[in-house]
């Protein structure tokens, strides 16, 4: 949690995930290169490499885009979420190698990308040649699909450059979120890049089928999850009493150290049951708006399921020395019914828990 920024938070588990991630990517590229050069497509090795890195990047992008909705559907996908940022940065470098190649002075590794292969001759700068050699933007068949890839790459660069928590704080969460929603625009650009380019020139059935599956899967999964979430929010909270408190359900609905999530005054509230007590806080984590109500009470603290930020339930604040604060709500217990005041208290306001018993 933020007392001061850390560079990158690696622990043993994340290192294992990163190792598996890099090994899988390496294996994929190796298999792609071997199979493609054995089957003799008439392409030279450099053309095959461009495709290997392009398709590896595309597959990883699909996995990254699936993780969010999958965790909404099943909690077992959470470990993938913890590692998503490193996947994003890996993806960015794959796409970058696809476009501009790799030529590190220190490593003996040298890979040609589109820029160094198609555009590094003649008297124009490669980058100028990339955009100027074809300007038939009105022709769907001869469309300069490279520009679509380049636009996507720019979006991915901005996202990779702003992935550290520093950016969440400095751009504020709503702007940061909006910026990172750009990934869907970029996904659309990449799909168009492939449909208007390689699917027409290369016409490999795997490419066409893969693109079809990707579109159906990504759009379908997101629609399905969005509908389910909207369903949760539209469920009416119970009746309210004279003082405005709302009946949100019975104590028996909530498991020990867990929460029930209800929508009050337009945003979700999490009511936690712990140590024979009930406390209600905003469901929105101060870090990246993670769903606190899907977390657990660990060592007396509400623990966010996304990145583990912690809050004391009655205080609505992280234990010192941490400084995060979330809004709290008054809770009353009448018999076994729980009543919550829908008016939020300022972040970090202490509210006495309702005692069960």
């Amino acid at each position, binding site marked *: 949690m*933020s*007392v*001061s*920024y*850390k*560079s*990158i938070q690696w622990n043993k588990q994340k290192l294992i995930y990163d190792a598996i991630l890099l090994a899988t990517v390496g294996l994929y590229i190796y298999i792609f290169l071997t199979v493609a050069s054995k089957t003799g497509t008439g392409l030279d090795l450099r053309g095959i490499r461009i495709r290997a890195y392009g398709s590896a990047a595309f597959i990883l992008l699909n996995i990254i885009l699936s993780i969010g909705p999958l965790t909404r559907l099943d909690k077992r996908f959470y470990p993938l979420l913890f590692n998503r940022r490193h996947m994003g940065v890996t993806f960015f470098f794959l796409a970058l190698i696809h476009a501009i190649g790799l030529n590190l002075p220190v490593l003996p590794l040298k890979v040609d990308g589109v820029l160094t292969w198609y555009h590094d001759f003649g008297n*124009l*700068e490669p*980058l*100028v040649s990339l*955009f*100027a*050699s074809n*300007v038939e933007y009105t022709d769907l068949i001869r469309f300069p699909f490279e520009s679509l890839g380049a636009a996507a790459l720019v979006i991915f*660069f*901005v996202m*990779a*450059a*702003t992935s*550290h928590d*520093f*950016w969440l*704080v*400095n*751009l*504020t*969460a*709503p702007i940061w979120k909006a910026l990172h929603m750009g990934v869907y625009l970029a996904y659309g650009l990449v799909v168009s890049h492939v449909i208007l380019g390689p699917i027409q020139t290369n016409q490999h059935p795997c490419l066409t089928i893969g693109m079809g599956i990707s579109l159906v899967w990504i759009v379908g999964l997101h629609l399905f999850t969005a509908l389910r979430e909207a369903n949760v929010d539209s469920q009416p909270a119970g009746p309210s009493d004279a003082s405005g408190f709302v009946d949100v359900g019975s104590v028996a609905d909530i498991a020990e150290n867990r929460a029930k999530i209800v929508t009050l*005054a*337009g*945003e979700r509230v999490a009511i936690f049951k712990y140590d024979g007590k009930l406390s209600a806080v*905003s469901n*929105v984590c101060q870090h990246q*708006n993670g769903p606190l109500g899907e977390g657990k009470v660990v060592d007396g603290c509400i623990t966010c399921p996304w990145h583990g930020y912690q809050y004391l339930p009655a205080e609505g604040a992280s234990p010192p020395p941490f400084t995060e604060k*979330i*809004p709290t709500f008054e809770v009353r217990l009448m018999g076994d019914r729980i009543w919550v005041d829908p*008016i*939020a*208290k*300022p*972040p970090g*306001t202490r509210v006495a828990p309702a005692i069960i018993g």
Partner: protein
Amino acid sequence: MNAFAIALIECLLKAVQIYFIAGLIFAIVFSLLGVQRTDPGARGIAPFFRLIIIPGVSIFWPLFALRLVQGKQHPIEKTAHRQAAKFSR
């Protein structure tokens, strides 16, 4: 190839390049000397943290330049609950 398109593209790429290089110079100085003034979360030497914000600052540098000039820090974010809580008392 179309001479007008080449001239236009060269010009645009040059503009982007100049913006980004100016940003890069600002970002290096900012990450060493400025960041602790606009963000109290940036403390200590933390060399890797300072390095890792450079690409992003090279893109968003006018924002940080403005904050430095105005002597401001990053804003505190708002959500519906936070807004409601502010008005409730």
